[in-house]
């Protein structure tokens, strides 16, 4: 190395150079031309080495975003899947839906997740967080029937009857856009386009655009009008109109993957308003401040409610 003699005293300059305390130009004066080139390549190799080893998680998030934006399609299972699979059997799902055969498609969304699904007939379903949708692909052509638990917005292509079965009732249409919520004993249908028929507890209703019906806890059906043209949750907000707070709480829980402990408050309090899907703190503030309920995060993801 050129200059090695004179720099024996300084046996840390490479460390300083790598940390950026010594410039490349300075290094060039300290070592030979070939050494200089080697060190530059070494440094670049080290930088890249880190990057090649770094996590690929972020890219996966981007992939998911791109897929969602492209409205990922649900496709058939491989034709020979059943050969590998366990013999078909009658399966009871939530003790309610009898499903026969091997081509049951199940789509689930996780906490805070939304999925857009293109069905085989060109219809589209947008699922809100913590929802499950199942349908029989084999029978789809003859019978457009889906099972839903949770919340979803349907844009149905014209064709034969399209039925959404829930444990709170059935929703049937020909070609339209509507939103269904069926979370435990909370059931709500809003029609945005076309004509929707709803059957629940032996009662039937026909909804026209902006009409909505709701049944809470087996009580009588309530009807009202909405003014929006899309369910608000598609724009990243959940909206409620005179809803017992416990349903708002469970919507918050599914959206943010948190536990809300509401033992200390009356969970029949009525809430009207909305919360954002973007920021938990803002969401908690908008819901609970208006009802004068105090909340605090005792442990991570555990929120306790109390009265002022």
């Amino acid at each position, binding site marked *: 190395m050129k200059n090695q003699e004179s720099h024996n005293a300084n046996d840390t300059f490479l*460390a300083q150079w790598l940390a950026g305390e010594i410039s490349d130009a300075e290094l060039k004066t300290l070592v030979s031309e070939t050494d200089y080139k080697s060190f530059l*390549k070494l440094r670049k190799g080290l930088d890249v080495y880190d990057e090649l080893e770094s996590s690929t998680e972020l890219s996966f998030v981007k992939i998911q975003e791109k897929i969602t934006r492209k409205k990922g399609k649900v496709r058939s299972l*491989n034709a020979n899947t059943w050969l590998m699979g366990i013999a078909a059997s009658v399966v009871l799902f939530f003790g309610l839906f009898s499903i026969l055969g*091997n081509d049951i498609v*199940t789509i689930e969304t996780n906490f805070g997740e939304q999925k857009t699904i293109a069905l085989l007939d060109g219809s589209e379903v947008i699922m809100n967080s913590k929802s499950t949708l199942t349908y029989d692909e084999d029978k789809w052509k003859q019978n457009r029937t889906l099972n839903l638990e949770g919340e979803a917005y349907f844009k149905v292509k014209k064709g034969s009857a399209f039925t959404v079965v829930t444990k709170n009732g059935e929703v049937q249409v020909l070609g339209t856009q509507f939103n269904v919520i069926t979370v435990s004993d909370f059931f709500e249908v809003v029609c945005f386009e076309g004509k929707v028929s709803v059957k629940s507890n032996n009662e039937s209703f026909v909804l026209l655009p902006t009409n909505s019906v709701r049944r809470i806890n087996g009580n009588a059906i309530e009807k009202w009008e909405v003014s929006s043209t899309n369910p608000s949750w598609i724009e990243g907000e959940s909206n409620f109109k005179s809803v017992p707070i416990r349903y708002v709480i469970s919507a918050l829980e599914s959206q943010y993957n948190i536990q809300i402990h509401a033992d200390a408050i009356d969970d029949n309090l009525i809430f009207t308003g909305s919360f954002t899907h973007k920021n938990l703190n803002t969401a908690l503030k908008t819901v609970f401040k208006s009802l004068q309920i105090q909340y605090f995060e005792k442990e991570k993801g555990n929120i306790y409610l109390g009265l002022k």
Partner: protein
Amino acid sequence: MECIFSKQIMSKDQHNICHSKTFESLYQTYAKDIRRFIFYKTQDIDKAEDILQDTFIKLWDNCGKVHYDKAKSFLYTVASNTFLNTVKHDKVVKKHQQSISSQHNNESPEFIMLEKEFMEKLERTINSLPEKQKEVFLLNRIEKKKYKEIAEMLDISVKAVEKRMHSALLVLREKIGNV
């Protein structure tokens, strides 16, 4: 009943790429290798990331057609083709740019080629560094700790940390040879 149901779905869907869990596990298995594979072609980590993403989106788009056992070769083929397409595109762009901009300076650090062999040798050499140098080296390069922080962690002087780094770099330089 719920439990039985989900078990059956699992075993049936385990090898179905359209199932998001399967898709994700394929990603976990191959993402780094594909990114590396493309990096050696592009020499550009950002481009490698882009191609990685496009490749897996293609797999998702074709999830019903690609057999689970063929997923790996599908991924490599798509990655490779996507790379070739970007080269084609880049050539057109470059041709256009060259008419305006001056010649590239091959001396500048941006144009240092990092070959697969070089990177492998580098990794082997890092792993074979003397224990004390290696410790400091990895804390600095992988954990991104500053010399001062390392000094505090190991209860030695900053000067001692720098000495070890300096020696480690000399070892690497020697083992890797001229470039």
